[in-house]
């Protein structure tokens, strides 16, 4: 599929065909009373400003800092994530999978764009794009290389194709040199891509 951000240098004074069609349909649906524009604004604001990967980072940081929480998260992630107030649409059934020195987990949805919204927000364009969806299952190491990530040859890679309503959250390995860190500080190390499995967490020196 086309990566729309590559075609983003158009003149904004000219409305594209898509812009006009979306605007027209919103007018029709509003005039018919099927949608309330204030509800649309709130939906956009929620996913633009409130629900994003910072949520997932807090979950991972708590799992790093708190062994009892980690055990609950890995056993049954949906209620464990709910403890932090994150739940709902596209995260009704969440499974957390943990990276270890011998196993690296990576999440894809080859059939569409399934992604754990309550903890990661809306997926980036690359996650929904044909290059990622086609190759993640057949050549995961090649895909990781596109992200600048090289794993030891001895590390096994497990790819989770999100074909049902189960959503997967990767719990990356806690970086070295973080003993005694607070959850808040640990959360600054947790990147979005590290929770998809296409990246690794930051190291303490990245924050310096």
């Amino acid at each position, binding site marked *: 599929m086309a990566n729309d951000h590559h075609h983003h240098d158009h003149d904004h004074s000219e409305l594209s065909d898509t812009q006009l069609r979306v605007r027209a349909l919103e007018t029709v649906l509003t005039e018919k009373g099927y*949608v309330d524009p204030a509800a649309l604004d709130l939906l*956009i604001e929620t996913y633009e400003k409130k629900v994003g990967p910072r949520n997932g980072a807090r979950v991972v940081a708590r799992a790093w800092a708190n062994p009892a929480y980690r055990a609950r998260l890995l056993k049954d992630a949906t209620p464990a994530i709910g403890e932090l107030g994150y739940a709902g649409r596209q995260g009704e059934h969440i499974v957390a999978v943990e990276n270890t020195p011998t196993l690296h987990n990576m999440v894809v949805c080859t059939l569409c764009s399934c992604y754990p919204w309550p903890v990661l927000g809306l997926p980036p364009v690359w996650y929904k794009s044909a290059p990622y969806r086609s190759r993640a299952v057949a050549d995961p190491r090649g895909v990781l290389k596109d992200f600048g990530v090289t794993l030891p040859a001895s590390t096994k890679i497990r*790819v989770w194709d999100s074909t049902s309503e189960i959503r997967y959250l990767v719990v990356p390995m806690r970086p070295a040199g973080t003993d005694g860190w607070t959850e808040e500080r640990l959360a600054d190390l947790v990147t979005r891509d590290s929770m998809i499995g296409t990246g690794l967490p930051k190291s303490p020196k990245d924050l310096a």
Partner: protein
Amino acid sequence: MNGPQDLGGMDGFGPVEPEPNEPVFHDDWEKRAFALTLAMGMPGGWNIDQSRFARENRSPAEYWSMSYYQIWFAALERMLKERALVTDDEVVAGHSLHKPKPVPRVLSPGDVLKVLHRGGPTERPTNTKPAFKPGNAVRAKNINPPTHTRLPRYVRGHVGTVDRVIGFHVFPDSNATGAGENPQWLYTVRFEGRELWGPDGDPTSQVSVDAWESYLTPAD
């Protein structure tokens, strides 16, 4: 359907190109298309599997040339027209020209956070027992329905191992056609990279899919 959405294992799409500091939306119309799609679920009355089928059921050339929100928007228009909630002349005019059809409910601003927080769980109660247990060898069936399915082509005919029994969940293949939820046991099934991709496959990789019971046969 063996459609353009079923991408696993295809070649030729090029490298993955992550965008640094990517914004949540790239244009105003994406925000509106996203919000319209979410908000119309309630009055539109369709389910998530019908939405997915409306997105994927188009020619590969069309699907692959569209951005993801363009696909969402095209599917929204299609579902609205199929249900006569909106007509062609209204889309052209950009205004309502006919009396609205009665709809079950409209999403009010006060309900947005509640509705998002509740989501749409797909697990259903059951008195039945799962046919497979973790460790069982299973073969993904070679099925090719022209309608919606969540069994990707790249696992069909291949043997994997049941990793876990997830629960009893709505079956998308029937839910997408309006034939009902027909819930079934759902499993995570793990395949070795070489089982899926042959000798060229990465021997250190494993891939799992979530598969409903009727997708699987015993292979012990």
